[in-house]
């Protein structure tokens, strides 16, 4: 079957989107979630298992503690309490840890070690995956089932002082709160004094059930001067005195009420040796966790070493301690020492509740949950538990009862550990098999595209796609067979969950057919290329087209950009790469223009032969390689020779000045929105624009400019319509429509970006591409570069936080998902989309041959799929990198979205091309 290269490229990109989607699904495992939402959870607590006999314990057990104080110290590393620093600076805490009524643990945090996800983990017991950050873009409120919400529902009065992140997460939960901002990192006294100043009053009052204090000072000191700074010692001493104050107050109150209270001292994340956090070093992951209560009395000589536990265990423990249901998504297991002092029946009851919750979560998230060892252990211990209850109710021999009870407890603890482990593995593990299948699809498509370059960029712009022969070839069936066998082996032996295995057999089979068909196509293309290569080398009359400096630059720039994606700093500062590249591109164009303009003026009267000869040769090469203007060929050479000479007077000066105008525009735009990380503190011109009334008037001027340019474009299309077809008018109209839509969606201070984009497009079209006669491929790649640069000029970055969600609400009263997503995507990718649509309009109105458009489509598909394929491989190899969550993953999402948009653009290209060939 013969396909136009445009249609071929569009098909390839669509298949590539499938591959990327599969890869993304494997890379971002769906977080472990219970299907029932927080509001709907009114189901009764699981009754005590009882073999035969009926138990009277069917309700939730009563709370163990009357009051709970959670004292969270940001960045409290384990050795600040348990190490030499703790002994030196926190004498009271050390006393409590070593001799007092307390249990101490080293709680291991999971990635990312940043405050907000850690607070979520502490309160919900779940592991917030990266995808959560994306999902919850428009609501900072924590909607998941968590201890705070449960406590509020149970009528507990909660008071909070500290980091205002809590207030954002739990907006209506606190009866009293005072948020402090963590914005001023250099302030480490005020921020804590603002918490402590309420303390005396609150401790005296006693009309609350839960008090949460979040101290930020320690973390701020870490950020400013590192963990070995002397300031740390002062801060720890201050914290120690606060802890003592709270503890003595709680103890004196207990003496009156006789019900134990609980004081929790914990950290949210640790602190690296340089004082930062966010990554996965041991210093950042290990935090101190101390539970203090008079219920934990110990005999003298009872030495309790800090045990290693998971941070997520705290949620389940708090829920049990407050007599609340355990949060549905919690993957933590109860910290057993806290209930050790209770009667055996209560202990088993708590363990059972926790095990039921975990096994329910497992059932909802793992399809083959019955085979999980944790689940089997749970069933077994539940049976034993039932037996124990029966014996207990029958008041059997205490010796037997005690032994059996100990056995059940051990069994439960094992089951809990296994369940918790297999649940947290669900989140933490990459689904390598799905990732691999996705990568294979993407790579096959890319190699197919690469192999078909010579044919697709030939004058005819058509290529032979063997569609049916691979289906009947032996290779195809062999590959299919091997793949199916592999699929069966992998899926039956897989330990963790795998998305691709979870697909239905028909879908998986379809994907495998696709993979093997693509493989056959690649092999046949490879064979054809080598066959042709031999044939050509025998003839060897075919002159190799010479590469101009511009081509070399374009090629090297693209390669360099792809390579730069391997470094996290270059991803953070990717805008710099693009600005750098388009600057260089402009300078190269400038060089080309000046050479063509100035040199030929001279050389023509002198008849400098070599210049002339060289020019004819390049012109011929250009013709040979490029736009394939079959009809223009006889005149091509002479036209390209005279094209610059015909420009006289002001036009020539415009041509000479145009690269500098473009460079100046780009420089202005660059300072409009500072994105990235390192130079983000530089003042934005954009902020200046939105600041006041006078400045806002400038914005209005820009709006008028847009309207003017839009009308001019419309007029231009009218003029063109007189001699060309209606179609170009339509295309220019679509383009203008997109421009107007972008103008509507952009933030006011971003409108200059749009104006300059229109300006640069006009200048480039009029004074550079037309006179210099670049071929379609070069023009496409330049459009792509400028599109990427404008993506960043808009203020975007490779960080999810810069996505402007407000664009999704323009013209909508309430949040409607489909148009909101569409508008946000368009507003974010406006730069690339506008440049691509300008490319379509420009090519279809400028060149009279149809092949230019399909060449452009092919080039666009190739140049967009190259970075995404390389990036997929890079990310796979860097998946244990320190910055995988903070830097590489957001970029992967952006790349995925970009390839989706590219696919849409390519389909649009092809549709235009088809109508063109029909008419």
């Amino acid at each position, binding site marked *: 079957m013969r396909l136009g290269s445009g249609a071929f490229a569009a098909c390839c990109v669509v298949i590539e989107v499938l591959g990327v989607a599969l890869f993304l699904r494997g890379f971002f495992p769906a977080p472990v979630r219970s299907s029932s939402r927080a509001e709907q959870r009114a189901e009764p607590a699981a009754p005590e298992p009882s073999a035969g006999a009926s138990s009277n314990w069917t309700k939730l057990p009563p709370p163990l503690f009357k009051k709970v104080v959670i004292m969270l110290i940001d960045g409290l590393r384990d050795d600040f309490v348990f190490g030499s620093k703790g002994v030196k600076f926190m004498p009271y805490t050390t006393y409590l840890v070593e001799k007092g009524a307390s249990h101490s643990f080293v709680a291991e945090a999971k990635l990312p070690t940043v405050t907000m996800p850690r607070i979520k983990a502490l309160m919900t017991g779940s592991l917030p995956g990266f995808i959560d950050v994306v999902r919850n873009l428009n609501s900072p409120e924590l909607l998941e089932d968590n201890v705070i919400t449960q406590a509020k529902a149970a009528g507990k009065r909660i008071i909070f002082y500290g980091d205002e992140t809590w207030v954002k997460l739990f907006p209506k939960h606190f009866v009293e709160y005072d948020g402090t901002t963590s914005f001023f990192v250099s302030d480490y006294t005020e921020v804590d004094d603002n918490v402590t100043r309420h303390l005396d009053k609150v401790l005296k009052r006693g009309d609350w059930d839960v008090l949460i204090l979040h101290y930020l000072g320690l973390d701020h000191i870490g950020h400013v001067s590192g963990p070995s700074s002397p300031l740390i010692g002062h801060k720890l001493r201050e914290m120690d005195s606060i802890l003592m104050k709270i503890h003595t107050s709680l103890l004196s109150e207990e003496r009156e009420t006789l019900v134990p209270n609980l004081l929790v001292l914990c950290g949210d994340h640790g602190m690296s040796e340089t004082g930062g956090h966010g990554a996965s070093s041991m210093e950042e992951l290990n935090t101190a966790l101390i539970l203090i209560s008079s219920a934990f009395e110990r005999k003298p000589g009872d030495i309790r070493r800090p045990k290693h536990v998971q941070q997520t265990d705290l949620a389940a423990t708090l829920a049990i301690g407050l007599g609340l249901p355990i949060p549905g998504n919690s993957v933590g297991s109860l910290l057993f020492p806290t209930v050790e002092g209770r009667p055996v029946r209560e202990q088993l009851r708590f363990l059972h509740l926790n095990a039921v919750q975990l096994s329910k979560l497992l059932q909802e998230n793992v399809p083959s949950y019955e085979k999980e060892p944790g689940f089997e252990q749970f069933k077994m211990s539940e049976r034993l538990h039932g037996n124990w209850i029966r014996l207990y109710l029958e008041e059997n021999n205490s010796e037997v009862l005690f032994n059996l009870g100990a056995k059940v407890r051990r069994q439960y603890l094992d089951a809990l550990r296994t369940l918790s482990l297999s649940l947290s593995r669900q989140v933490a593990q990459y689904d390598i098999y799905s990732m691999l299948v996705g990568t294979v699809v993407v790579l096959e498509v890319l190699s197919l595209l690469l192999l078909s370059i010579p044919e697709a960029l030939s004058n005819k712009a058509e290529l032979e796609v063997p569609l049916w022969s691979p289906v009947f070839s032996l290779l195809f069936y062999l590959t299919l067979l091997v793949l199916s066998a592999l699929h069966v082996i992998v899926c039956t032996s897989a330990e963790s969950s795998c998305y691709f295995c979870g697909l239905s057999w028909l879908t998986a089979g379809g994907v495998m057919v696709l993979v093997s068909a693509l493989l056959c196509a690649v092999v046949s293309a490879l064979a054809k290329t080598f066959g042709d290569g031999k044939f050509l080398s025998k003839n060897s009359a075919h002159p190799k087209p010479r590469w101009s400096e511009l081509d070399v630059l374009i090629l090297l720039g693209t390669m360099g950009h792809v390579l730069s994606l391997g*470094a*996290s*700093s*270059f991803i*953070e*500062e990717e805008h*710099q790469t693009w*600005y*750098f590249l388009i*600057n*260089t591109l402009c*300078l190269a164009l400038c*060089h080309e223009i*000046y*050479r063509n303009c*100035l*040199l030929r003026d*001279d050389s023509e009267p002198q008849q400098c032969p*070599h*210049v002339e000869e*060289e020019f004819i040769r390049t012109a011929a090469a250009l013709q040979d390689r490029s736009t394939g203007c079959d009809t223009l060929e006889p005149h091509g050479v002479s036209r390209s020779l005279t094209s610059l000479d015909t420009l006289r007077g002001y036009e020539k000066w415009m041509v000479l000045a145009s690269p500098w105008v473009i*460079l*100046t525009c*780009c*420089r202005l735009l*660059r*300072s409009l929105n500072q994105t*990235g990380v*390192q130079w983000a503190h530089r003042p934005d011109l954009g902020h200046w624009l939105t600041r006041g009334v006078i400045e806002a008037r400038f914005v209005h001027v820009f709006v008028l400019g847009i309207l003017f340019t839009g009308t001019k474009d419309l007029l231009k299309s009218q003029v063109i319509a007189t001699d060309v077809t209606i179609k170009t008018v339509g295309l220019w109209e679509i383009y203008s429509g997109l421009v107007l839509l972008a103008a509507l969606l952009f933030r006011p201070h971003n409108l200059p970006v749009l104006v300059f984009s229109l300006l640069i497009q006009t200048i480039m079209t009029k004074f550079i591409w037309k006179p210099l006669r670049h071929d379609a491929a070069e023009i496409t790649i330049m459009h792509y570069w400028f599109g990427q640069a404008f993506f960043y000029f808009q203020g975007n970055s490779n960080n999810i936080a810069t996505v402007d969600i407000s664009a999704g609400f323009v013209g909508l009263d309430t949040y409607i998902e489909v148009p909101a997503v569409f508008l946000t995507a368009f507003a974010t990718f406006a730069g690339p989309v506008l440049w691509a649509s300008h490319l379509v309009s420009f090519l279809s109105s400028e060149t009279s041959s149809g092949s230019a458009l399909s060449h452009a489509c092919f080039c666009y598909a190739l140049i967009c799929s190259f970075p995404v394929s390389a990036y997929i491989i890079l990310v796979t190899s860097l998946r244990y990198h320190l910055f995988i969550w903070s830097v590489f993953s957001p970029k992967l999402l952006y790349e995925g979205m970009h390839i989706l948009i590219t696919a849409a653009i390519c389909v649009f290209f092809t549709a235009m091309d088809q109508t063109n060939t029909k008419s």
Partner: protein
Amino acid sequence: MKDTDIKRLLYTHLLCIFSIILSICIPSFFLENFSILETHLTWLCICSVSVTAVNLVLYLIVKPNASSKRSSISYKVTRFLKCCIYFLMSCFFFHVIFVLYGAPLIELVLETFLFAVILSTFTTVPCLCLLGPNIKAWLRVFSRNGVTSIWENSLQITTISSFIGTWLGAFPIPLDWERPWQVWPISCTLGATFGYVAGLVISPLWIYWNRKQLTYKNN
């Protein structure tokens, strides 16, 4: 006929390299606390002056294109003045280009300008010495097949490699290694210097290697 020329070329280039090395070593005897990274601006000035001086001296001694027909004093003076103006203009031109590439506009002006000066020293000064203040000749040399002697050929190579060195020198700036040499414009000036030195080394070798293929129109 060419081997002697190539030898002369090689010696001049070695002298240029030597001047750069001297500009690194000598000042530490006279100035306290001199180091390339910490007192970078001082080094930039010294290096620029010494390279310019060596270039001028070499030009006067070697005289690669002895085709000055008129040799009146006034002509020479105007020519020299023109060269100075061209040099200044090229400094400002490079400065503007650096700003267009994203160098800060107001802060670090002196640093940016000295960087422009050193890049002009590496590129414009040899051009001025060899070709004189003649933009057309420059454009001819820097287009394909435009060179007419090995001197111009080596000029082309050294200039382009200086530019490429500068260009590549900008790459480490965004990396988060926090090294002293990543500060603007140190990595770029170092890149330019390395590029210039590399060009000086490569060009005689390259010309020697390709001496059979190279045919110049005017030779």
